[in-house]
């Protein structure tokens, strides 16, 4: 018996189904990875946040009690405000300096390539090692920074950097800027180099000066990479922990606790794992809201 030939519609439907299966097959491993290492632990974290689980055992269901405690936890909100201040101050410094270094080193001459490498090198040092290094550089007795400032006549005597919250804050900002600025520089160089050189050449022909070309051509055309780098940098700053743990120990008087440091204190020093889990969920939601807003703004400006 002869089978009827399939219609074009049926053939298109079959082809679409085959493409769907192929798509799922390709993303399957990644989805499995995300499911096992992100979604399941996240689910466990949410579950733990609704218990009074301690590091020493136990774990009775308490509903939203931990979240109610967070509302009255002055220490957490103070830490969150400090983290926000740190993010707002540090991010423009990193973006501005990073873009400046990118403009300086974007051409592929040997000197510029060496400069790029030198600026990028601190990025590959671990954050813990970098923080320890700067902790001792800032030391009042043996730190090289104080010696330099005194020798240059900027200070009359060595300064105790971590004696006030403000000085401790700027000490950390300086150390992180040194460590991380190269990362932004590299991304911005990639963004600038991806711009069609004919556009800048045309601008030169039209008589546009260097800064005009930067302001009117390079910056607008590297907006996407700028916004992406800002987002990554801001998220990194909101999750700051190592540098404050090592350099300031949250002091003086707990004034330099960040949100993650506060979570660490509650979870592993006070043994309150359930409460720490609730704090983590709240922080995650805050960062998600911030990221969603930024991505929405990026999409809107790209659409203009």
């Amino acid at each position: 018996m002869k089978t009827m030939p399939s219609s074009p519609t049926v053939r298109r439907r079959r082809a679409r189904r085959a493409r769907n299966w192929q798509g799922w097959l390709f993303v399957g491993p990644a989805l499995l990875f995300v499911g096992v290492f992100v979604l399941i632990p996240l689910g466990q974290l949410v579950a733990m946040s609704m218990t009074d689980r301690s590091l020493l055992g136990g774990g009775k269901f308490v509903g939203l009690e931990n979240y109610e405690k967070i509302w009255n936890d002055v220490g957490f909100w103070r830490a969150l405000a400090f983290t926000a201040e740190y993010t707002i101050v540090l991010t423009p410094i990193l973006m501005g300096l990073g873009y400046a270094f990118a403009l300086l080193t974007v051409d592929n001459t040997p000197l510029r390539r060496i400069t790029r490498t030198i600026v990028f090198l601190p990025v590959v040092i671990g954050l813990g090692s970098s923080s320890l290094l700067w902790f001792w550089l800032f030391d009042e007795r043996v730190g090289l920074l104080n010696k330099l400032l005194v020798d240059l006549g900027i200070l009359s005597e060595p300064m105790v950097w971590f004696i006030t919250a403000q000085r401790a804050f700027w000490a950390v900002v300086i150390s992180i800027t040194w460590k991380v600025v190269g990362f932004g520089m590299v991304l911005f160089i990639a963004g600038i180099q991806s711009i069609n050189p004919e556009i800048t050449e045309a601008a030169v022909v039209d008589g546009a000066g260097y800064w005009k070309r930067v302001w009117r051509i390079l910056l607008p055309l590297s907006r996407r990479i700028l916004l992406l780098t800002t987002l990554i940098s801001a998220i990194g700053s909101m999750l700051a922990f190592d540098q404050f743990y090592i350099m300031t120990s949250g002091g003086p008087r707990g004034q330099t606790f960040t949100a993650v440091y506060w979570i660490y204190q509650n979870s592993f020093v006070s043994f309150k794992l359930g409460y720490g889990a609730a704090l983590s969920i709240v922080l995650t939601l805050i960062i998600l809201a911030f990221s969603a807003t930024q991505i929405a703004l990026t999409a809107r400006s790209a659409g203009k």
Partner: protein
Amino acid sequence: MSTASLRAGFAAALIASTAFTTAAWADSLTMWVRASGTNAASTLVNLWNSTHADKIELTTIPDNQMVTKLATGVQAGEVPDLVSFDLIYMPDFMKAGFLTDLTADLKANKDYAGVAKAYVDIATYQGKLYGAGFTPDVSILVWNKDLFKKAGLDPEKPPKSVPEIHEDAKKIHALGADIYGFYFSGSCPGCNIFTTSPMMVASGSKMLPASGSDDALTGDGVKDVLEQFKEMWDEGLVPKSAQADNGSNFVALFKSGKIGIQGAGGFLISDLKHDVPDMNFGVTFLPGMKEGQVSAFVGGDVVAIPVGSKHVALAKSFVAWELSDEAQLEGLAKNNILPSRPALADNKYFAAEPRVVTTAKALAVGYVPWVYHFADMVNSDSSPWINMLQRAIFDGDVDGAIKEGREKMKAIAAE
């Protein structure tokens, strides 16, 4: 083959098989030790391994990971046979049921009767014993004899009270702007519970609450000592950098010869002899507000057997052995580490160094607080203990600081 050869061969095989089965029956124990206790623990473990068929394999755990690792290990059923950790965690671990009851074994051990009382107290929960002192450390007062001599003070006469520390510090600071009479690490909660709290305890105060209904920071000792420290700070007798020191420079300035007097631990003796062999320094007990009042903070590690250990009997025999004269003298004292039995302080190894004898004797006058959530109450970077010290000494509000510290400590103890 002759009969003689056969007999010789059989005898050789029998001897060889005995050695083989001995090795095959010998067990291997695992032991975790926190990083800061590794050197001291190694002296005992190495001695045990050199004299016993059953070997102990020592694993170092970073100090700030020990609690987490042990807690998760017990709950997962994956624990070492022995564990050596900071004794201040004993109450939390005993309450959580993490440790094996050693009451019968320790009470039957004649050496246990001579262990410093502080170690017995910290390892007791509801009348039962769960651990033994292992590698002790204790706080003492050190003074720079060279600076004392230059300042016109008798270098062989240490201050016997906190006000006398203050008076001597003034004379030492008069030697020069960069010479200071006294030092303490102003942002280090652990350093201060170790060296400042014994002055308060010696003056009659009780420090920490064991429960929400227990009192905290009682007596005049806390206020009197804080006021002395505040005055020394206001008078510039303490370097400015002390305010921000989180312990990284706990003894660095004393080693540089710029500090007249400070509290420290027994560990400093060998440190100073190694790093600054030309410095003349003395060691004495930490004093209270009046002459004759002395105390010390008894610290260091205890050894215990986690619940879930697979070699409990063997682990118990190690705990019994480490209290013996052999272990205490040939393991600890020989390596300049304090024995946990103060009666052994006068031994041939310490005879050449009377300062170590003094330190060992400090164990007998020392205290250790028996409280839950010690880390939260004291050691944490945001603890009520360090906040109280900083508010009292650097802000000058002694009464307010004590009141706030007391309330917060009781709130933590009530959790």
